[in-house]
């Protein structure tokens, strides 16, 4: 039996994973995955200052203040990129460590006043989340972070559902979106605001770095499995949930960090998909290449036979032994191709002599026309 604490922790991690996977999918598609890394680090000074003011990590004021830092980071990166003194990736790589450092120094200097541990900010630990209860009129309604994350997840879902068409257009064809008057910049900033809010709300459970795993991993995994945006969102939510649950139990088994185990499971699902995805997976691609080799060779064979068919030299040319010379195939390879072609009912074989079937002739003619 699971204890109530275990159920609550799993619920929290599931909600965090879903809230991250939704906007993260768009980061993957918009080639801005590293923005999540930048934002999740750069919000630290915002969190520290917010905490200084509210003394409550789940306070909406803190979440807003820190989210503003996230959006400012995005703007700062854009300003720096616009000076044309840096490439965008260098601008990202400059801005977030500096902001993060400011946060760390703030924590170190006001350590006495701020009960905030840098390790906790960086790493997060959902195991502590159930201790902070949401109590109204003496009634315990469950862990507070479940409500906070739930609200953020709902916000993300509503945003995506409400602006689905606009988001889709701005993501796949920003130029057209601008031409049609959809203001892709507005959508960009709205998305960045959501990413910031999500990162702030989630850092307490999973920390600044693992937020990146939950935002990018599920989206990238889904990207290997489908070409449709709707499916991609659905799959990434499922991958996020699966990582949350399996991560919890992995951590339970090893008595290790839950957040770290969730990220590990994200990696596991991504790696599995990388190998096994039906169309975009690496094994599928390998098989496709192999099959293409056979298909190509069969076509070569039928064209060769068709060329000489019915001519005087056919007796000489259309023999297995001759393929080695004419198509420069190894003799073993030639025999296997002929075997294949026989199985596919493209050629018939009499002793060493090869003759096309009607089907083989069609394939050859069709190939010649196509190419």
């Amino acid at each position: 039996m699971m204890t109530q604490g275990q159920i609550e922790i799993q619920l929290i991690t599931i909600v965090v994973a879903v809230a991250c996977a939704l906007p993260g999918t768009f980061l993957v598609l918009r080639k801005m995955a590293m923005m999540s890394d930048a934002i999740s680090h750069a919000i630290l000074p915002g969190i520290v200052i917010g905490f200084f003011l509210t003394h409550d990590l789940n306070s909406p004021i803190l979440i807003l203040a820190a989210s503003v830092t996230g959006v400012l980071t995005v703007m700062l990166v854009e300003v720096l990129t616009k000076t044309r003194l840096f490439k965008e990736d260098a601008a990202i790589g400059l801005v977030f460590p500096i902001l993060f450092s400011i946060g760390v120094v703030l924590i170190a200097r006001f350590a006495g006043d701020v009960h905030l541990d840098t390790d906790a900010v960086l790493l997060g630990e959902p195991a502590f989340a159930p201790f902070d209860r949401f109590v109204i009129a003496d009634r315990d309604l469950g862990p507070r972070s479940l409500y906070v994350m739930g609200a953020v997840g709902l916000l993300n879902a509503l945003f995506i559902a409400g602006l689905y068409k606009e988001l889709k257009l701005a993501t796949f064809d920003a130029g057209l979106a601008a031409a049609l008057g959809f203001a892709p910049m507005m959508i960009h900033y709205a998305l960045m605001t959501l990413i910031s809010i999500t990162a702030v709300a989630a850092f307490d459970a999973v920390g600044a770095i693992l937020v990146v795993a939950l935002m990018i991993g599920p989206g990238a995994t889904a990207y290997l499995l489908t070409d449709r945006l709707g499916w991609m969102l659905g799959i990434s939510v499922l991958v996020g949930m699966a990582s949350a649950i399996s991560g919890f139990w992995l951590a339970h088994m090893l008595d290790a960090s839950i957040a770290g185990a969730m990220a590990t499971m994200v990696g596991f699902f991504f790696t599995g998909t990388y190998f096994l995805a039906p169309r975009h997976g690496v094994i599928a691609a390998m098989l496709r290449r192999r099959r293409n080799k056979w298909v190509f060779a069969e076509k070569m064979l039928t064209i060769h036979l068709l060329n000489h068919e019915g001519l005087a030299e056919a007796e000489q040319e259309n023999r297995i032994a001759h393929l080695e010379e004419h198509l420069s195939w190894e003799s073993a390879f030639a025999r296997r191709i002929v075997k294949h072609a026989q199985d596919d009912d493209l050629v018939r074989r009499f002793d060493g002599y090869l003759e096309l079937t009607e089907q083989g002739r069609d394939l050859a003619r069709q190939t010649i026309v196509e190419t």
Partner: protein
Amino acid sequence: MEIFQQLFTDYTLRMVAMGSATLGIVSGSLGTYAVLRGQSLLGDAISHAALPGIAIAFLLTGSKTPIVLMAGAAAAGWLATLLIMSVTQTTRIKYDSMLGITLSVFFGVGLVLLTFIQRRPEATQAGLDTFLFGQAAALVRQDVITMAALGGAALILMVIFWKELKLLSFDPEFGRTIGFPIRRLDILLTTLLVIAIVIGLQTVGVVLMSAMVVAPASAGRQWTDRLGVMVVISAALGAVAGVSGAVVSSTMRSMPTGPTIVLCMGVIVLISILLAPNRGIIWRRIRDRRNARRLRIEAVLMNLYALGLQHADPQHPHEEAVLDVMSSESGSAVPALNRLQEQGLVVRSGATQWSLTQKGLMLADRLRKERGG
């Protein structure tokens, strides 16, 4: 001045300063290539990915000797880079997604391992989690020697393969055409970057190490357009940031070394983008303003010339008021006319009339031809 004295007498401060300087030089030099090749964030992935390597090295050997942990970190960082390269080459996954996944998943695995080590009964992990933010104050002589030896080796390799790495950075396609083993050079350069990152983990930690790769080179880039000069400047700036970070963190209360070095680096970048000649923002402002003024003055000259073309005598004098109207968008023409007079291009005739001098006429003629009028 006392601080300079301390730099020579205080053992800890000296070690921290020397370690940070070494780190700044090595990561500044090799970061140059990362920044130029658009791989600024690769360092971030490598440094985060080093964490599980450190944990595994400890689990396997039970040793906390820096060189052992560094070897683990390097192996993991290297593996991460190869993964990023091969996944982006074999599937539709984009480079940025792969960076994000690699850094966060490796870090997550590292965290699982660290907490696993920590919670075992014989918990002796103390010292491993310092790799998160680094612990420069704990640097001893042996650490600095290790850093200098590894970093020095990396820099020597960089110098030996100077020409090849330059080609790799600026025109890999051309390099491939003329028969350079571009892929192997890519792996070599990545390996050097991994070394630069690994030697810094103890000092600034996995989280901030990427800044040491990106920041010195980004600052150095502003001062020059030449690779050799950029490497030297970036190394020097990295060293300056390292030493000043070490000094500031030792003189001020509660300033952790790693973040302080990064902040010093931030100041250096800011100064560079403002002041660097040619590329710097202030320089660019001044140049733009000067150009705008020159164009305004030339416009008045050309107006006077255009008016002159209406007459048989191109040097026919014209009313100031007319010129004012013609250049109305940039205010009165009088300041420009005065400048032109100083240069001997126009001359005042009468109280409110101006005409071109012979020299002014020739210049205007030439300008018109240049502009294809």
